[in-house]
């Protein structure tokens, strides 16, 4: 896992790179999507890594969020800001 210095959003993160979630723009998400993301463990400080992209374009993407691999679309990933991973 390489740490990106500049904060970006999960959808713009290059493949096979990662960091930690530094912020979530809950207002961009529908209530349903927001709840689902929380249930899938999206929270500030959680390590993420972008693993795969869908075959026919940009959507969907597969990311490691904490210990889970989660599939989501760029529209939702754009609400998740990613910064460098803090060492423990």
């Amino acid at each position, binding site marked *: 896992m390489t740490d990106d210095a500049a904060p970006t959003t999960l959808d713009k993160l290059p493949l096979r790179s990662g960091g930690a979630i530094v912020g979530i723009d809950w207002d961009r998400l*529908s209530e*349903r*999507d927001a*709840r*689902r*993301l*929380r*249930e*899938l*463990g999206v*929270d500030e400080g959680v390590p993420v890594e972008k*693993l*795969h*992209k*869908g*075959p*026919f*374009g940009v*959507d*969907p993407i*597969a990311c490691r969020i*904490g*210990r*889970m*691999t*989660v*599939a*989501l*679309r760029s*529209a*939702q990933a754009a609400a998740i800001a990613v910064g460098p991973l803090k060492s423990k």
Partner: protein
Amino acid sequence: MNPTPLVALAGNPNAGKSALFNALTGARQKVGNYPGVTVERKSGRMSLADGRPVELLDLPGTYSLQPSSPDEAVTHDVLLGKQEGERLPSALLVVIDATNLDNHLRFALQLIALGLPTVVALNMVDMAERDGLTIDAAKLSAELGVPVIPTVAVRRRGIEELKTAIGMLSASGGAVRVDADHPALHEDIVELQRRARAIAVTATTEENFKRRWTHRADAVALHPILGPILLATILFVMFQAVFAWSAAPVDMIDGAFIDLQDAVTAAMPDGFLRSLIVEGLIAGVGAVIVFLPQILILFLFILLLEASGYMVRAAFIMDHLMARVGLSGRAFIPLLSSFACAIPGIMATRTIDDPKDRLTTILIAPLMTCSARLPVYAVIIGAFIPARDVGPGIGLQGLVLFGLYIAGIAGAMLAAYVLRRTVTKGPPPGFMMEMPRYQMPILRDIALGLWQRALIFLKRAGTIIAFTTVVLWLLVSFPKPPADYDLPSIDYSVAGRIANGLEPVFRPIGFNRDMALALIPAMAAREVAVSALATVYAVDAADETVQEKSLVERLRGRWSLPTALAFLAWFVFAPQCISTIAVVRRETNGWKWTGFMLAYLFTLAYVAAGATYWTAVALGL
């Protein structure tokens, strides 16, 4: 006398709940439904170490207690004692995945906070070790305040310890009612999640997390080019296997039924009862049971894809294409299940939380070629499509079958596209799904799943299908025509008269009277069309001097190729299944969408059959 204590089994999806349930109860399971909702109710008996019986209730896998999808609502209501038709559980067994403590502990914390006597099964500890995690169960137990038993459900490790722990709980007393305003039900997810993470860190004594296997497999399965090729290959192999692997067992069953007919014919005096049994019951039921091998092969693939964790990858690959017609990849799983049977498929839509996405998926699910169509397709293909190879390992019959599946899928996609832009219009649904680790499917669990499916099928063959076949045989056989009647005797019968009345409706699309006749009882279930044709032609054949043995031979002599193709096209689209209609009505809460579905599917079927017929005629087939 006290009733058997009820223990509820709860946990996140992918915690290995089903495997644990199977390990605890063995094959002593009851699968049913909750009244009013299509969430499956699965319960089983297990004996504790001291021999006391306990009823174990398998709750649907959910992420929280917030009742927003039907699954979550059932879990919520059962635990609150509000679920109709369910008694209050006296204890709770919470399953968590040792490799994903952060997330699973969150739901576990919420469940423990309800205050019921609780045991936690720390499942898949072997996987956690392989992933480089060492977890201290005693520490975790101290943090949670309830017993924690490490288990490996698939290898039956820790099962006895778990039973002992449950025994100590349920000894302590009766059911506990949880209030609707219980604080555990309203705790903030993020807050819980943070506590869960803190506990996970405390309990994990060694961490070097790496999921090598899954990563390597995903590098292929989710590859932008290899992934779709892999998916297409799996699906193609699946459909070829349905035909190729089933040939021998199908012939065996077919032979057994012919032997049975001969034996009954030899043993009984000629008369009404003998022809009812030989031509009605055995011919009709046999014509359907012969397809059991194909149906089981199809279910085998679906069960394997689900158990291995590949199904969600397939959803990932398909998401973009599904998005083009206004659905999400999530809809792919119910739709693929619908290839086996639309009923579990429609029930699987309950995991889709967007209501419009879900409704659209329900409306198009019956277009997926379910296993009940296989008997119809197999007979017609067997009769009219020559069994020759068009390429290495690719048979023409298999190819035509594949084409019929594709036609169903294309029809479904087209329908979804139109529906999402008209009647089920709404914002595009999101796609968010956990991708579980790959797992070696457990043979025992797959076998159990297949056994349950086989039983359901045979029960149908023994009840609905046997009944409709016998009724049809009676209608086809009576009244007997007078001696000087020069048309086939079937024209004189009740069924013949009804079919003659219906025939003008179907004549424009190339259907003959016998087909119209077969379509009526086939409303009960599609495969009845085959037994109906078998019955009709068995009665009909009595008039002839030459006796062809099989239905396939009889069809060849009576139908033209365009007619046969039109019949196939009809079955791609027609919603001929009472059970599906009932499930759709229940799922959509009324007749409005059910009626809509029936109307649009019958229209599609009629148009498609007509177009097929006239195209084939024009091509001179």
